């Protein structure tokens, strides 16, 4: 059997492959060779084979069959084997697999090996991928090595201990004794890793934190030495001595000084020193300054020091290096709440960062800008933010638009400014505003009564320019529907459109491909509303949609049409048009709670709610000649006299009063009088039992009397046999008949009645509508 090819040879060969397929073939061939070599338990070449496997694994090919081989290599006595074996273990094994536990014994042995480099391999592997079980088993060995005088091993043991503590926090206590003299070390490697270990312990345990607070003076001293000492070639980075250690010490100081006045005071001077003396021309100096600023802002530092820190950040913002600008913005974002005024001083620089090319910087600058907006700077800031909104990437637009709305709501200097700002957002980023903005904006506009004319005019103009942005179109449609009369009446500053133009625009929205179903709903409703305000005919448009494929639109169109047919004369009764005024207020209320998903559901909910209210009010207000006939038939029949008070309905609140004043319904015509009485069926509260009593005041009998009734779809009706079908003349008797109505949905009871009888030889037929049953009869 020839020796397996060398690693570098294999790499060279694979790299000559010109296609993916060719590479795959080579790999498969080599894997097969390696597999058979493994099967032969070849010790000599195992190392080489595993190394090749690791290369192929890096290319993305499966290598799990090499896992056990790695363990065999680790157990070998040869250093080369161990090196590759441990590397393989770290790359191919992970703690989810039981195989890794087999390593435990080998690692234990190697932790006690006579060669420090072998011990080093074991510590490295344990500290990189040791599972909780392994850590529990080997923590003792690590602790032992933490106390050794060999700095090469001590530094590795410290970081290994960090890993053990992360995996098994309960073991933290056992490392405490070993930490005693860690900071007295001269060796920077040990110092650095010790500081990392101490940091880990203090972050995890308040007790440890208290215990280690006494180290603050020592840490301060070490830091001071680093800064003050002369050039040390071994640790120098661009003129700074061991920046890695400095940064870690600063971080530990931050944790120790956090809520402690004494410690904070003890580190005050050194922080000031670092902040002022560190060379800022290179990244490394700025890295230290950055850590210093973070520490100053987090501990209980005196105000002078805090101002110093913020000024450093301000200088960072002007740095050419965008990485520095980035960390400055991040830090300022963290401190803007606590040191608001100090950060305000750098506002203009922050705003300039909005124009930066880098996405991360732009985002932070945007967040920070919004945090800095207040009553004093709102106008200037908004100008910049709106400009940003115009030009920024789509990923920012939604957040920016929301931020603008929030800021405008909080600090708007005037209503007109507020509405102008909203308009600007809708026109520049209209498609990105969040769903709940539309009802919120409608509410805002409603409440700004004096701005209605101005708003509707501007929105109308915006619609003429662009109908693609749905939120803008929706808000505009709504406004035009509401305030269309203001739009055409000459109250606007510029030349007003005529009614037909406005209707054309709304119609255009209905047919446009750009309009979503929700938007179409808005425009249809707007057209309907305008039919009560405009003299031109909006009817035809609405009726077309009676056969629309969109169910929502179809339903609206049909129901609006029904309204139109009956209430033609109402269009100009402005005082009776009050019910249309109710609609907007109710619309807005009904869009809450925001858990409704989909604005179609939301808008249809309030649409139905509004029509329901409509029916109520209409039926109550207009008795004679004006009752709604939904059950078919075009006869408008004057019927029921009620003792309804004649006060006109006004906005929502009095609705309930009107219902409460109703009395018994009666029919009286041509001498025939029918009275309705009610009772509730005991077993089933959903059934209303109505009894009619028919009496005759004329001097002739009414014979062949038949009473028929029909109810809307949601009800069920049962008509029992009448007592007789002759209504005797001159009130000498009555015909009674029981009607049982099932009303499971507890809706307002409505009934259509047909009466036929013969009187003095001629057949008489009459139709009537009963709408004002008292609430007790159906609730």
């Amino acid at each position, binding site marked *: 059997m020839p020796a397996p090819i060398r690693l570098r040879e294999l790499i060279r060969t694979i790299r000559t492959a010109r296609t993916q397929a060719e590479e795959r073939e080579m790999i498969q061939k080599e894997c097969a060779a390696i597999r058979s070599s493994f099967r032969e338990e070849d010790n000599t070449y195992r190392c080489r084979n595993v190394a090749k496997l690791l290369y192929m694994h890096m290319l993305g090919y499966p290598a799990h069959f090499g896992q056990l081989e790695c363990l065999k290599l680790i157990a070998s006595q040869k250093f080369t084997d161990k090196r590759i074996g441990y590397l393989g273990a770290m790359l191919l094994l992970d703690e989810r697999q039981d195989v890794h536990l087999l390593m435990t014994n080998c690692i234990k042995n190697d932790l006690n090996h006579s060669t420090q480099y072998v011990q080093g391999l074991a510590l490295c592997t344990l500290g990189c991928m040791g599972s909780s079980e392994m850590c529990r088993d080997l923590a003792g060995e690590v602790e032992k090595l933490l106390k050794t005088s060999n700095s090469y091993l001590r530094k590795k043991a410290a970081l290994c201990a960090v890993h053990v503590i992360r995996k098994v926090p309960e073991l933290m206590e056992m490392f405490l004794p070993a930490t005693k003299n860690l900071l007295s070390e001269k060796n920077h490697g040990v110092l650095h890793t010790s500081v990392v270990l101490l940091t880990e312990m203090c972050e995890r345990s308040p007790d440890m934190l208290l215990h280690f607070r006494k180290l603050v003076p020592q840490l301060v001293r070490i830091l001071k030495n680093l800064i003050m000492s002369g050039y040390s070639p071994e640790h120098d980075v661009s003129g700074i001595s061991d920046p890695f250690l400095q940064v870690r010490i600063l971080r530990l100081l931050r944790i120790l000084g956090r809520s402690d006045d004494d410690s904070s005071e003890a580190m005050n001077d050194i922080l000031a020193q670092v902040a002022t003396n560190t060379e800022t021309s290179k*990244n490394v100096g700025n890295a230290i300054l950055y850590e210093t600023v973070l520490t100053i802002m987090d501990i209980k530092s005196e105000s002078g020091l805090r101002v110093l820190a913020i000024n450093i950040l301000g200088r960072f913002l002007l740095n050419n290096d965008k990485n520095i600008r980035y960390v400055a913005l991040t830090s300022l974002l963290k401190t803007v709440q606590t040191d608001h005024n100090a950060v305000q001083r750098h506002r203009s620089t922050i705003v300039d960062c909005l124009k930066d090319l880098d996405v991360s910087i732009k985002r932070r600058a945007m967040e920070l800008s919004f945090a800095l907006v207040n009553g004093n700077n709102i106008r200037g800031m908004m100008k910049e933010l709106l400009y940003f909104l115009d030009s920024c990437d789509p990923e920012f637009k939604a957040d920016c638009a929301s931020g603008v709305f929030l800021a405008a709501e909080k600090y708007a200097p005037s209503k007109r400014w507020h509405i102008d700002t909203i308009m600007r957002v809708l026109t520049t980023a209209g498609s990105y505003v969040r769903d709940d903005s539309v009802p919120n904006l409608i509410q805002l506009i409603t409440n700004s009564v004096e701005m209605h004319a101005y708003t509707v005019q501007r929105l109308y103009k915006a619609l003429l320019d662009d109908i693609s942005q749905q939120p803008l179109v929706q808000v505009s449609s709504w406004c035009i529907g509401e305030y269309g009369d203001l739009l055409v009446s000459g109250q606007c500053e510029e030349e007003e459109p005529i009614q037909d133009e406005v209707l054309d625009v709304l119609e255009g929205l209905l047919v446009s491909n750009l309009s979503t179903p929700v938007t179409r709903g808005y425009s249809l409703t707007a057209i309907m509303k305008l039919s009560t305000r405009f003299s031109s005919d909006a009817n035809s448009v609405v009726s077309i949609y009676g056969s629309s494929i969109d169910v929502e639109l179809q339903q609206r169109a049909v129901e609006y049409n029904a309204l139109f047919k009956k209430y033609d004369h109402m269009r100009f009764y402005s005082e009776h048009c009050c019910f249309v005024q109710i609609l907007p207020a109710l619309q807005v209320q009904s869009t809450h709670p925001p858990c409704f998903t989909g604005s179609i559901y939301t808008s249809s909910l309030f649409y139905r709610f509004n029509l329901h209210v409509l029916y109520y009010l209409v039926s109550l207000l207009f008795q004679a000649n004006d009752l709604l006939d939904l059950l078919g038939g075009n006869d408008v029949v004057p019927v029921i006299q009620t003792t309804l008070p004649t006060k006109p309905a006004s906005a929502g609140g009095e609705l309930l009063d009107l219902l409460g004043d109703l009395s018994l319904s009666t029919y009286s015509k041509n001498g025939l009088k029918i009275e309705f009485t009610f009772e509730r069926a005991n077993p089933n509260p959903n059934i209303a039992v109505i009894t009619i009593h028919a009496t005759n005041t004329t001097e002739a009998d009414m014979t062949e009397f038949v009473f028929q009734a029909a109810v809307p779809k949601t009800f069920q009706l049962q008509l029992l046999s009448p007592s007789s079908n002759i209504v005797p003349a001159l009130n000498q008797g009555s015909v009674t008949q029981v009607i049982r109505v099932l009303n499971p949905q507890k809706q307002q009871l409505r009934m259509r009645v047909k009466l036929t009888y013969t009187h003095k030889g001629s057949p008489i037929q009459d139709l009537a509508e009963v709408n004002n049953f008292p609430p007790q009869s159906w609730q």
Partner: protein
Amino acid sequence: MQFMLLFSRQGKLRLQKWYVPLSDKERKKISRDLVQTILARKPKMCSFLEWRDLKIVYKRYASLYFCCAVEDQDNELITLEIIHRYVELLDKYFGSVCELDIIFNFEKAYFILDEFLLGGEAQETSKKNVLKAIEQADLLQEVYEMV
């Protein structure tokens, strides 16, 4: 540090060091996605980005991208220094290192990294000491070139 990746401009992985326990499948997915994200960035952009819930620090040296995922509390600027230190170590070891060195001697690149970082933290801040340790360990390797 949670992991470090080295990859070429074509997106080929040259080194992957993981300090958090993840399955092979998860590692592959993360590598693939992150590499794509970084390669899509323009040259003038900043070295830091938020990706999923991690902070990513990356820097390009010639044809190789060095990319680290660090924790929230970690200092991004010093991470750049860590990356730079590693590059210097490779450079000193290989003598003017280039991508090919790392391709053909990937195991050595790992050994050097493991002498510089342990568990994601720097274990030795002296360049000299790291290189000395590697040298000594190399000497321990059996005389005949087995690999």
